[in-house]
Structure formats: C-alpha cells, structure tokens
C-alpha cells in the first residue's frame, strides 16, 4: 500500500474513531433517559442525532447549500494553512489575513461603481492582495530577524482584530446611523452571485460563487505545487531548508513569498465572506474560521485535495450540527467536540493504530507537524 492510501486510511479511521467517541458522549449525556434506566431511549437519541447530522448536511438542496456555505471560507483559509505547511511554515495567522482580505474587498466593494463583471474580480483581487500583504509581514520578520512565525502570526491576529474594530468605526467604513462596529454595505455589483441563483430567488440557499473561487484556488495550489519551479522550491525548503540553500534557492525570499501566498488564500476567504455571504463586514467576520482552518489543513494533510475534502467535511458537520440541535436536545457544541476529537486522533496516529490494531509503522502520519521545525 502506498503512502497516500495509507494516510487516507488513517484519516478515515480517525474520523470513525471520533464519531464513536462522540456517540458515547451523546448517550451518556442523555441524562433523563439514563436516569430512568431507559437505555433504548438514549440510543434512539443517538440515532436521531446522527440522522439529523446527515440530513442537515446532505439531505436536501438546502442542506447541501449550507454545507457549501460553511465549507467555502474553511477551504480558502485551509489552503492558507496548507500552503504554508508545504513550505515548512506553521501559519496560525489565517484569522488576521482573513480580516485584512475582508477589509480590502469591502473597501473596493463600496467605493467604486462598476459593472459586476469588473467589480467582483477587482474586489476579490483586492482581498487577495490585502491578505498577501498582511501575510507577508510574518514572512519578512522571519527572514530578516528569525522571529518564529507561530508567535508573530498569533500577535498579528490580535493586531488585525483591533485594527478592524477601529476601522469599522471610522467615517470611511462606518454604516450611516450605526454606532457599533459594523460597515457599510458593498455595492450590489460587487456581490458574488448565489450559486443556486439559476433556481429562482430562494433566500434560503446561501451558497455563493465564493465556493467556485475556493475550488479555483485549490486548483491553483495544486498547479503551483506540481507544475511550477516556485512550488518545487517551496516544498524543498519546507522539507529541508539546508538542502534548499545548498541547491541555490533563496530560502529567505521563499519564506516571504510562501507567507504571501498563504495570506492571499486567507484574504480571499475574508473577501468571499464579505462579498458573497454578508454584503458588509463586522468585527466578527472571521470568527473562528482561521483556527478551524488549521484543523482542516491537518485533516487534509496539507494536500490540495485533502484540504478540499476536509473543508467539505467540516462544512457538513457545521450545517448538520444545526439540524441535529433542532431534532434532538444535543447541542451544536457537540460538533466542536467532534471536530476536536478528529484532530486529536489525527495528531495521535499511535492511538488510532492501537484502536484498530493496525500493524506497521505510523510514520506516514506524523509529518503534518513538520512546520514546527522552523
């Protein structure tokens, strides 16, 4: 069995293991049923909960639309983490880069009056450029001073959050008649069209063209890695910086470029949320997506296709979780537990090996964390 299949199997098993543990949690937290000694009821709750999870994520067009809506920013931000991983960098800063991208897209979105065919791409480019610029900062800091990107990206997240909070209250961004941190609306011409717009005006189908942007970005990431000299250099640097330097690669510039590329992906995530989902920006536009993106990249093992699948899975869990909460008393917080369990099992290959009694080396598995080496 080759390494790809092996790691795919481990990933699937990690998800299965996490679903099992979550099932256990659902059963033992159904206190009412358990208190009455009614185990049958507890297991029925479990069935309803997991059925709700499935129904809410793939059971209808609306469910699918919700899954896609959730997956879109996760995929783009996930690419921001994955692409940095490939270059041996651990990008915790997707949140800050998303915020930068959101503000860039927002500004172009409300400032100009242009036909949509120009306005949308321009706003997206502004998002990517803002994210790239912001992402390059930790790259420059690392290349120039050796400051570890984990520290600097975390700090820059805070800087971004508070800067956005302030910006949203300035005359330039502030929405007329509002005192809280909420922005103007972008022009109609800057909005990303709805993905299922061809089905008529249905306000419950939120999925937008941001998903296509994300798919395109995934392809670009793949193309970059597999077809370009830059991708070759990034990966060589990521695996072995000494060897890259020996081979004449400019490893310091590569750190900056890799972080800028990561920032561009995250910037698009912020832009697509503003231009596709909300139509404006608030201080919470990035939410926890920047951190969930780390889980997505880990689960997807930093490959383009893996990141795509992981983002869809997380999007589905998020969409299905809401349905689950409606159908049963199981709170949507369980989804957070489930996701955490998946990541934990991914990070602990030996545990998965022990549970499923797999023989042989788990070594194909631990490599996702290489980014720490820098």
């Amino acid at each position, binding site marked *: 069995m080759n390494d790809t299949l092996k790691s795919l199997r481990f990933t699937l098993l990690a998800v299965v293991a996490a679903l099992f543990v979550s099932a256990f949690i659902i059963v033992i937290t159904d206190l009412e049923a358990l208190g009455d000694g009614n185990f049958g009821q507890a297991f029925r709750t479990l069935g309803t909960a997991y059925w709700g999870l499935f129904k809410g994520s793939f059971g209808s067009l609306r469910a699918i639309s919700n899954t896609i809506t959730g997956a879109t920013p996760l995929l783009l931000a996930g690419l921001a983490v994955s692409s940095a991983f490939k270059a041996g960098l651990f990008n915790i800063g997707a949140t800050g880069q998303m915020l930068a991208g959101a503000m860039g897209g927002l500004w172009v979105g409300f400032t100009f009056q242009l036909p949509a065919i120009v306005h949308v791409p321009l706003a997206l480019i502004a998002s990517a450029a803002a994210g790239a610029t912001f992402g390059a900062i930790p790259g420059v800091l690392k290349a120039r001073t050796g400051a570890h990107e984990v520290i600097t990206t975390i700090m820059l997240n805070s800087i971004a959050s508070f800067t956005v909070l302030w910006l949203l209250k300035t005359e330039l961004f502030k929405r007329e008649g509002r005192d809280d941190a909420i922005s103007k609306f972008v022009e109609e011409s800057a909005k990303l069209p709805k993905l299922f717009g061809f089905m008529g005006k249905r306000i419950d189908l939120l999925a937008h063209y941001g998903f296509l942007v994300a798919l395109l970005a995934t392809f670009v990431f793949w193309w970059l890695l597999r077809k370009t000299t830059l991708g070759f250099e990034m990966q*060589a640097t990521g*695996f*072995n910086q000494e060897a890259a330097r*020996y081979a*004449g690669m400019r490893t310091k510039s590569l750190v900056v470029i890799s972080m800028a590329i990561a920032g561009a992906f995250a910037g698009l995530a912020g832009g697509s949320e503003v231009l596709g989902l909300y139509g404006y920006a608030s201080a919470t536009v990035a939410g926890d997506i920047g951190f969930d993106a780390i889980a997505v990249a880990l689960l997807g093992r930093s490959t383009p296709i893996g990141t795509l699948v992981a983002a869809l899975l997380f999007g589905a869990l998020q969409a299905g979780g809401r349905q689950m909460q409606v159908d049963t008393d199981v709170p949507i917080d369980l989804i957070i537990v489930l996701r955490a369990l998946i990541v934990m099992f991914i990070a602990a290959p030996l545990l998965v090996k022990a549970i499923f009694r797999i023989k042989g080396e788990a070594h194909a598995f631990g490599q996702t964390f290489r980014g720490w080496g820098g």
Partner: protein
Amino acid sequence: MKFELKGITKRFPGVVANDQVSLEVSTGEVLALIGENGAGKSTLMNVLYGIYRADEGEILIDGSPVSFSSPADAIAAGIGMVHQHFMLVPVMTVAENVVLGVEPTGRFGSLDISEARRMVREVSDKYHLELDPDAVIEDLPVGVRQRVEIVKVLLRDAKIVVFDEPTAVLTPSEILEFFEIVKTLVSAGRGVIFITHKLKEALTIADRINVLRRGKVAGAADPKHATEAEIAEMMVGRAVQLVVDKSVAKPGESVLRVANLSVVEPDGRTVVDSVSFEVRAGEIVGVAGVQGNGQTELVEAIAGLRRAASGSVTLDGKEITSYSPRERHSAGMAHIPEDRQRQGLVVDQSIVENLVLTRYHDDEFSSGFLMKWDAAEAKAKELVAAYDIRTNDPTQSASTLSGGNQQKVIVARELSRDIRLAVASQPTRGIDVGSIEYIHAQMVKERDAGTAVLVVSTELDEVMSLSDRVLVMYRGKIVADLDPKTVSHMDVGLYMAGSRPDEARAS
C-alpha cells in the same frame, strides 16, 4: 567470564537486521566486529545492550541464559557501551558526568561531589586514564571525552566493554593512545568488543575478528594470518579494489585559486585562517585533517554557503568570492556536500526531484516558471542507469535508498554535467565498500577528463589513495602540502595533530 549471543534474529518491518547471528566474547580478549553500514552491527549491539529485544535467540552469560529488557539490566550484568556519539552533558564537569545515574549522595540526598571526584580518580589511576575530574566536558578534546565515557563504563563495573566505531573521531595519535587503553583494559581482565569498518585497526588490536554481512555472520578471521583483502572480500561478498586505480595525473592550468581566505564565526572565532592553495585541471587535491579543524567551513566558503571574512576565491581566473551558490554552480562548480541527508538531498522528495535539485532552473528542466517534469524524469532514468543507482522506481522518495545509493544520486547530479571544478566533502562517509569504489572511480574519471577535483575527508586512507596532492588542515590553517606517493601515513598523522614530523623525531 564468557558472554554469548546465540542465534540472534531481529526483524524490522521489511528487513531482517540480524539473521541467526551467534558470537561470543570472553574477558581478557578483544573481539572486532566488522561489517559495512547496514550489516547489522549496531542492531546486534543494541540487542546485547537491552535496547532491542531479539525476536529469536538468546544471550548467555557463562552458559546461563539472561534476558535484558533495558540497558539498566545489561549494565547490571556487566556490559558497558561507549557510543560513537558521546552521551555526555557538555556543560557539566568530568566527575559530574561520570557519576550521572549512580551519584554518591550525602545527607538529604545532595550530590557528594568530593566522593565523585575520588571515584573518578580511583578508576582513572587504576587504568592509567589521565583525567581532571573538575574539567568541563565542552572544554575537552574529543579523545579525552572518549576517556570520560570509558571511565563512566568502568565505574559501573563493566566486564565487557563495547566500543561503537571508537576511532572515527580520533586523530592518528589519539588512536594509538586508544589502543593502549584497550590493552590496559584487557590485561585488567575486561573483555572488549570493537565495532569498526576499518580493517587495519581491527587487524592491529583484535584477538579475533567476526565479519557481518547483510545481517548474517559472514565468517571469522584470525588477525595473525588474515589479510585486509581477505576480510574485505568477506565483508562485501566479492573481491574488492582497496587501492584506487589511477594513472599519474597530468595537471593543466590552474582552475581553483583560493587566496588568503578566512572565515570567522559569529562568535568571533577564526575557523579558516588565511588559507591559500590552488587546484589545477586534471588533478585531485585532498584535504586531510581531523574533524573540526575548519574543513567544513572552508568548503562552505568555496561553495558560497558561508561568507568569507577576507581573501578571495577564483574560478578559471574569474573572482567568484561574492557569487551566490547558484552563480557558482553556473560558473561550473559542482559541490558534493559533507552531509547527504542534511544538505545534499531532500530525502522526503523523490529521486527524480533530487536528481534535479541543483539544476531545476536550467533550461533543460524548466522554462521560466514551469517545471518540465517529463524532461526531469527522462534525465533521472538516464542517470539511474549510468550511475548504477539501485532503485526500481525513481519516483519513489530518496529515503527509500541505502546510504551508498543516496550518495550516488548526489554524485550523479553533480558530476553528470559540464563542470570545471568538483568540490567533494566526505564523499564516502558511512557508505558501503562497493559504493566507495564506484564513487572513487567516478572522481578519477572526472579528473582524467580535465576537471579540477578538491576532496575533503577525515578518512586519511581515502585522502592518501585518491589524491594527487595532499594538504593538511590544522586549526584553520593549511599546515602541509604533501605528495601522497612519498609521505608516510604516520607523518601526515603528525601534521594532522599539529606537530611536524622532524620535530617529533627530534624530541
């Protein structure tokens, strides 16, 4: 007392590291265990030392079976191990290191340092191992650090002392001192297992020689009668060319000229001290020296990986001192770096990718921003065949190759293009005899084609047999420029240790 390993088999996923290996050693004798890298020597010793558990077979002490589940068990049974890479805490003193784990304690469990000093002195006096118990490890030369390790083992009352490649880091004179220590140990009734791949040393010091090949015992030899060639053949499984086969060099014009080159570390130490020499077309110049005398830094300065503090490097009459590694590459310099895993290869990437690692930007393998992977794969197929790289599939990762084949990947990549100068640092470190032969032959071939070749190696034999001219480096300076055909190994060894043969003889 007699230690026996009987029918030891140890399997790892995909390999049988030890296959029915049996050997025995008694106190009062030296057993040399010889084999190439990957022959299973270290695995066997780790079984003996309780680090691995054998899948089959048993360990006997004086005929009764024992079982070790950790090194602590092995130590308690009287086995001591001196590792190739010393297990010492650099910032602590000799006494502190020696008693680590068996600390003599005073009241309230505090370390009784004067008792520790006394223990160190007692052992070092008994075995004539001169040591200052209060010296800090990081201030000591390698030979002395090894003595600390030996004292550590003796203090734990080892009956059998295992030395894993003990001479790799020593100067020729330190090696002689080491042999004296071994003799003292044996006459004091200890047994010694001496793991090495250096045949000469095994023949000098051992009472018996066991040879391992591919995890099996390939045979035994009596050092009183056996020759190097016989043992080498046993080790490799076929007749081996121990001497590099080459004609007289016909040096041409000067290709590499290094003038007053100095390299200074960030902490202010001068590691390369105003070095000047030249390498002409069609000659192999070897740089001998004990590890850590500035050879690494010299090579890195020539290859552009380290900045020169002063001086110049000239290639074909053009000054390249401020060139980047890539510019030097384009100017016709090939560099086989010292550490193949750390520098020469990206082991997690494929063999194809590694074969173009320093060349992917050439028009042949990329056009602007886009890689031409088809061309790279075609080239890889060609090089795998031409340079005898043993692999079924060049798209597999380089980590699947043996050390010798990994080194061949680097050699193929660096020598297969049109070059003027080849700089090779430790080109055969830790690889099998077959690959060594092959790589040496390639370098001679390159020389005969008119390339200037600079070889840096800490293996004196390699430098002496491969080079047409030998430079000796000591504390950052070139201290001798010698003709390997007329100078003796011993004299080169003296230069390596910082003395001059004429002085040494006079005293």
